């Protein structure tokens, strides 16, 4: 039990360290936030007058969230490699605790992004949410899977030379099932749908998140080596 407690404390320390460093430098937050706001503004001006259908808006929301995530979530491991701190972290912390800590950090970043961008999207694009609770649940489950996949991919690409392109290229096929379910789930929470047929989407999103985090925890010690 004390082993587990020490492991969880190590994961918490990794997450707290990254949050502290992020609030002092704001690298990832700035990248994600600015990308999301710029994209949203462009979409709003370009497509706003056409009054897109609600179904399309649900897909557009996840496209914005996906590409905003691509803009900043890889930093979590890239920063360690670029700053030369990765070897010290490899020696000091249990590998699984590093993954969990980084996962929690990316999850926190995504939640901060959504607190900023989703209300703006709703207002600017005229998204009509029916069930706010289910809408938030779909976003939360989507975040759990999105953070799980992007964290392990970030670890994989952090030592490659073309990290940025590789991160997006590897992430897209892995995240495709999640994005499809998240878009379906979001559609079901809109006013016109009245939550009909949402449960399969929630089940897929939940299962995806659990499977992704579990597999990542198992694979991470193999990935987290030079």
């Amino acid at each position: 039990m004390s082993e587990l407690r020490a492991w969880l404390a190590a994961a918490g320390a990794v997450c707290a360290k990254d949050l502290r460093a992020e609030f002092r430098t704001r690298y990832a937050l700035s990248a994600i936030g600015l990308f999301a706001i710029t994209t949203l503004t462009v979409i709003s001006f370009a497509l706003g007058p056409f009054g897109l259908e609600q179904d399309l808006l649900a897909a557009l929301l996840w496209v914005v969230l996906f590409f905003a995530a691509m803009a900043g979530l890889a930093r979590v491991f890239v920063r360690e490699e670029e700053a030369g701190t990765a070897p010290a972290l490899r020696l000091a912390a249990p590998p699984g605790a590093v993954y969990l800590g980084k996962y929690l950090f990316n999850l926190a970043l995504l939640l901060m992004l959504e607190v900023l961008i989703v209300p703006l999207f709703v207002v600017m694009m005229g998204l009509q949410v029916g069930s706010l609770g289910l809408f938030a649940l779909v976003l939360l489950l989507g975040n759990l899977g999105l953070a799980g996949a992007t964290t392990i991919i970030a670890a994989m690409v952090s030592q490659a030379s073309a990290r940025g392109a590789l991160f997006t290229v590897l992430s897209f096929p892995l995240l495709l099932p999640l994005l499809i379910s998240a878009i379906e789930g979001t559609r079901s929470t809109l006013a016109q749908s009245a939550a009909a047929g949402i449960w399969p989407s929630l089940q897929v999103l939940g299962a995806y998140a659990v499977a992704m985090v579990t597999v990542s925890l198992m694979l991470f010690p193999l990935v987290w080596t030079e």
Partner: protein
Amino acid sequence: MVRLQVQKVLKRYGRLRVFRDLEAEVRSGQVLVLAGRNGSGKSTLLRIIAGLARPTRGRVVFYQDDRALGNEERRRLIGLVALDVAIYGELTAWENLSFFARVRGLRLAPEEGARLLSDVGLGGRGDDLAQTYSSGMRQRLKYACGLLHRPPFLLLDEPGAGLDEAGRTMVERLIAQQRERGLVVLATNEPREVAYGDIVLHLEERP
């Protein structure tokens, strides 16, 4: 009682052979020096010993009371200080120490942290961001972080690099203290540091 064996270690990068069939053994109270010219593979061998790089062939075995240690046990018992292994510039010295203690499952009391910083000549600077430190001060902070868990296996890469005379004296003192606690492996081509060694492994130039 700890012991470390380097067993017929070979390292290649593609077709480039860095070294081959290296063998050495070092025990508690001893210092193993990896010496050789630039590019001879000293740092590479030290990273292999630390478990940060894989040998192409051969292996490094760590023993505690004649029991071979697994990778996870080994990780917990190693302290590494190297020029290319950085500390977190966005954190203060105290936050760095506290972070490395927590991920190692230790609780670092403030007075213990203050003592560690004082031991490496950073007393009173614990609340400054590490990125505001000079290279020598960062090197001193690395010693504090690398030694906070009292590792029986201490690995040092160019231990005096970036340090002034007082810093080099500090390194001498830390190596002497480490002899009481375990063993030291250091990679260097400084004659003064080679002289610390009980065993010197000369890495030759590639043919």
